[in-house]
Every structure is written in C-alpha cells, then in structure tokens.
C-alpha cells in the first residue's frame, strides 16, 4: 500500500521529519505543506531521495514562496492545494506529520 506522508512542520525544530522518514516504504510519497516547506533543502530529505531516486517529494509552491523557500536541488515537485486531492487519491492512505 502506498502512503502519502504530509509534513507540516520544520524538521529543524523537531524530529518529526526523521520519524516520518523512518516509516517510509517504497511507493510512498512525501508532501511538504505549510511550515513543512522549510524542509525543501533539508539534508535528511535530500539524502532520502539520493538513496531512493524514485521517491517523489512534492511541496505546495504557494506555501514555499510565501516563506521565501526555494528547492535549490530542483528535485522536488512543486504542486498546488487543488492537485493535492489527486495526489491523495493516487495513494492508499496518508499520515499527517505536524
């Protein structure tokens, strides 16, 4: 079963991001929204994607722009709140990590 992990807090402030990555299985995807967008350049996320190149990491572009956050590596996919609905239906279930 593919899970969508929705991260809504900064991984620099707590270990929720690390905990989420611990629960990650193949076919899962990650979505950064709200303060989760502060993770667009987080080492743990970049490392996770290096280890599993097929891992899809999305972020809500509007939320990132509002916070002056740019995904420098450009390996994460910008998306919109509207498209999150589609994303949810592409997965079997989801967890919100906030």
């Amino acid at each position, binding site marked *: 079963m593919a899970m969508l992990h929705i991260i809504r807090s900064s991984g620099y402030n707590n270990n929720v991001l690390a905990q989420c990555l611990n629960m990650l299985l193949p076919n899962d995807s990650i979505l950064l929204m709200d303060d989760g967008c502060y993770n667009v350049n987080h080492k743990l996320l970049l490392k996770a994607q290096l280890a599993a190149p097929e891992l899809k990491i999305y972020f809500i572009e509007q939320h990132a722009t509002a916070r002056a956050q740019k995904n420098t590596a450009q390996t994460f996919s910008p998306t919109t709140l509207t498209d999150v609905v589609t994303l949810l239906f592409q997965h079997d*279930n989801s*967890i919100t990590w906030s």
Partner: protein
Amino acid sequence: MSEAIPNNITDNMTSNRTVAILNTEAPFSSATGKESLDTALIFGSYEQAISLFFIGDGVFQVIGDQNATEIEIKDYLKTFSALGFYDIENIYVCRESLTERNLPENFHISNIQVLSNKDFSQRLHQHNVIFRF
C-alpha cells in the same frame, strides 16, 4: 447500543476499513496521550477495528513502573488495561524507539507486540485511516 438500532444501520456503521492510531508523545506533559486513548475507546465502543502504534517518545506511554499520582496527575495509563473490553487487541511498539531510549521491554499492559522499524511501518501501512497523536 446495537440493540436499539436497526440491523441495516449497524451494518453500514461497521465497515471493514481499519483505523490506526500512531502515538508519538510522552504521557504527562500534554493531554495528547489521553486524547489519543479516548479516541481509541470511542472507536472501540462502536465496534470499529482499531490498532494502536507507539513510536518515538510515544513508547513512554506504555513502559512499566510509572506512577502518575506521584505528580498529582489523574492516571489515565490505568485505562490501558481496559482496552480488551473495547476489543482493542492490536498494540504495536517500535523496537528501535525502545533501544534508542535504552528501555527494556517492560510494559504496563500485557499484549504488546514489539516490532522492528520495518515491520512496524509495514503493519501501519496496512491500515486505511491513520491518526497521529
């Protein structure tokens, strides 16, 4: 109360969808743990299949020899022993979280299953709806 409700309605209420509750916080500094347990008991009261997961600081909720009354907190941990009456029997704890905290496998409830990080995650993935506390 199932007897007061026509059968066709109860059939709709009890689905095959499974619910997981993922606990990530220690028990006493916030109300999160108690709220999580209350949620589990409500699902149990309505015969909704539910599993409890403990990871990270959440494992502090299930370790043995705690005494909430010492710090004058109502001991909601005692309620865990009543889970069987609510047909809540799937309780999983992450082994790595225990090891990380140097905790032995000593719990105040009896039917806990300790799983490796990977097995824990796979079990979690098998549920349709996941609430994180």
